[in-house]
C-alpha cells in the first residue's frame, strides 16, 4: 500500500482557482490536472513487477481492475480519483429551545390566511417534537454567465425577439440541501435564517436528537452543486432579459473560485393534531419565525366564498337581463 495522502491543504486549481481536495487527479470544476511530483528517469529502466508478498510476476487483471499477482491473487494499489462519502465539516448550534419552536409554530398557524380553520391556532395540539440536524452544502463562486433568450422587447411581426448577454456574478453562501428526512421545499423554506458564522464542531449525540449524515459521495455532491449553480445562474439571468415576457432562456457558466462547505443545520420537526388528523411542521433551529409545514383547510370557509361569488355572478346576470 502507498502511504496515505498528506492532510496538508492543497494549492487551488491553476486555471479556475477552485479548491482541490486530496484524491483529486483533475480539478472537478474545469478539468485541469492536479500537480504531480515529477519522477522521470534519466536512463532507460526495465521494471519487472513482482508481488510484494510472494515475488511472483504481477499483471494487470481485468476482473480485479488492478494489478494482481498471478500466483497468490494479491491485488496491488494504484492511485485513482478518490470518491469518499461526504461528511459534515461543521454544525450550526440550536439557538432556540423547544418551547420557542412550539410558539413559533403556533404563530405560523395564525398566518396561514382566511381559508384555514378559525380555531387552528388554538385547537392544534402539539404531539412529538424532534430536534434534528439536517445536512447540506453551502457554496461560493465567481461565475461568468453567458445567457440568451427571447423576449417581447424589440419584437416586430413575431411576438418574440432574441437577446443575449454576459454578466459576472458572485454567488455567496448558496445552500444546496442534501437532507433525506426533510424535503427540498422544506429545507429551502427555512434556510434563510441560518447564521453561518456560528458554525462549530459536531454535536454530541443525545437521545431523541437526530444527526443526519450525507449519504452521497463526493462526485455526486459536486454534481448537485454544479446543478444548483446552473439553476441559480438561470434564476439570476431572468433579471437581465429585457421586458416582462421571456422564453427559451439558456445559460452557460464559467465558474471560478468555486468553494463549498459541508454543514449540519439545526431544525425542529413538530407533529401536531387538529380534529384528530396529524400534520407536520418544520421550524428553523435558530429562528422561530421561519416555519414550513402542512395545515388543514376550512371547507366551510371555502364553500362560503364560492357561494358568495356565485351569488354575486347571479345578481350581475339578473341585473343585466332586466
Amino acid at each position, binding site marked *: 500500500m502507498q502511504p496515505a495522502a498528506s492532510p496538508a491543504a492543497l494549492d487551488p486549481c*491553476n*486555471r*479556475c482557482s477552485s479548491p482541490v481536495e486530496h484524491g483529486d*487527479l*483533475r480539478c472537478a*470544476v*474545469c*478539468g*485541469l*490536472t492536479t500537480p*504531480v511530483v515529477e519522477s*522521470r*528517469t*534519466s*536512463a*532507460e*529502466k*526495465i*521494471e*519487472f*513487477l513482482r508481488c510484494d508478498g510472494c515475488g511472483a*510476476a*504481477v*499483471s*494487470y487483471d*481485468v*476482473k480485479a*481492475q*488492478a*494489478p494482481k499477482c498471478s500466483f497468490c491473487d494479491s491485488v*496491488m494499489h*494504484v*492511485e*485513482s*480519483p478518490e470518491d469518499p462519502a461526504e461528511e459534515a465539516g461543521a454544525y450550526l448550534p440550536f439557538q432556540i429551545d423547544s418551547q420557542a419552536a412550539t410558539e413559533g409554530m403556533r404563530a405560523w398557524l395564525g398566518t396561514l390566511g382566511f381559508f384555514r380553520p378559525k380555531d387552528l391556532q388554538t385547537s392544534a395540539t402539539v404531539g412529538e417534537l424532534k430536534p434534528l440536524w439536517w445536512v447540506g452544502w453551502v457554496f461560493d463562486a465567481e461565475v*461568468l454567465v*453567458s445567457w*440568451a*433568450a*427571447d423576449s417581447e422587447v424589440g*419584437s*416586430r*411581426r*413575431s*411576438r*418574440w*425577439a*432574441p*437577446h*443575449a*448577454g*454576459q454578466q459576472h456574478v458572485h454567488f455567496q453562501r448558496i445552500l444546496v440541501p442534501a437532507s433525506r428526512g426533510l424535503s427540498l421545499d422544506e429545507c429551502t423554506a427555512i434556510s434563510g435564517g441560518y447564521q453561518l458564522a456560528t458554525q462549530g464542531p459536531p454535536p454530541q449525540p443525545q437521545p431523541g436528537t437526530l444527526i443526519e449524515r450525507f449519504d452521497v459521495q463526493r*462526485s455526486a455532491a459536486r454534481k448537485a452543486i454544479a446543478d444548483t449553480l446552473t439553476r441559480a445562474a438561470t434564476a439570476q439571468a431572468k433579471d437581465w432579459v429585457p421586458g416582462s415576457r421571456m*422564453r*427559451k*432562456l*439558456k445559460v*452557460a*457558466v*464559467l465558474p471560478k473560485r468555486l468553494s463549498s462547505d459541508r454543514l449540519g443545520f439545526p431544525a425542529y420537526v413538530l407533529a401536531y393534531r387538529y380534529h384528530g388528523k396529524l400534520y407536520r411542521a418544520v421550524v428553523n433551529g435558530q429562528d422561530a419565525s421561519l416555519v414550513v409545514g402542512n395545515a388543514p383547510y376550512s371547507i366551510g370557509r371555502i364553500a362560503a366564498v364560492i357561494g358568495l361569488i356565485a351569488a354575486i355572478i347571479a345578481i350581475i346576470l339578473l341585473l343585466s337581463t332586466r
Partner: protein
Amino acid sequence: MSAISEFSCESCGSLVQVEAHLRTAACPYCASPAVIERPLEAGRPAPLFVLGFVVPHERALAEARRWIRRRWFVPEALRKAKVESIRGIYVPSYLFSAAADASYTAQIGENYTETYTTTNSKGQTVTRTRTRTEWRSLSGRYAAYVSDIVVTASRGISNHELEGVEPFDLRALHRYTPRLLSGWIAEEASLPAEQCRELAVSESMTEIQRRVAAHLPGDKQRNLQVQAHLNDIEQELLLVPVYVLPVRYGDDEVVRILVNGQTAKVHSKLPRSWTKITVIIILVVILAAIGGYLATRS
C-alpha cells in the same frame, strides 16, 4: 533513441528485445511481463494517466463477432470470417482541456402566425392561417470550460478510429503507474504533440459550435458563425484501453476492428459488398414497379 532496446529477463536470464514504439514486453521463454521506463525525450512525453481495461478478452471478442455479423452490406466472406486473434493495447492519446471564450453571430428565426385570404377548390374566398418566420440578427458571447477531449497520439490508430470507440469513462482515471501496463501491450506516443494539439483544438471548436447552437433562442437558426479562443490549454498523455482485432477474409484481405476496453463499443471501417447493394436496389425497383402497376390498374 535506439530502435530496439535489449534487456535480460529477471526470471530466466534470456535476452529480451523491445521495439522503440512499445512500452511493455514479455519474455518469450518464461512470459515474465516487463515495463520499460525511458528517459524523457523531445517528442516522447511520459504518460500521466491510464484508463484500465474493464472488458475481458472473451467479451470483446464476442462483441466484435456479433457486431460484424449484423453488418448486412459487407462482403459475405467477411461476415463469416473467423474472428479469433485479439490484442489488448494501451493506446497513447492526449487528454485536452481549456477555457473557451467565444463570440458568435447568427440569424434567429422567430415564428408568427398570419391570416390570409385565398380561393378554395370550389372558387369560394376563404380565410386561412399560416406560420411564417421572421429572421433577426443576434450576436453574443459564450464562455465555458471544454474538458474531456481525447485525441490519438498514435500513428497506428487514427483519430477517426479512436472517435469511433469513444467515449471513455474518465471517472475511472488512474494516475500512471507501470503496474497498470504489466502483461499488456502499451504503445509509446508516436505523433508529435503539436499535431495532436491541432486535432484537439479542432475537436474543441466543433464542441463549442455545437454548444453555442444549442444555446441560441428562437424557433430556428441559420448562418451561425462562432469565433472562439481557447485559453489555459492543457494536454496530458493518457493511455486508453483498446482491443484490436485483425480479420482476414477472401483473397487474404484484412480489416481491423477496434473494441473499447472499457465499454465494449465496436468500430471499424468495413468494405461494402456492391453485389448485395445492387441486388437490393434491383429488388426495390421491381417492388416499386409492381406497386405502381397495381395502383394504376385499381
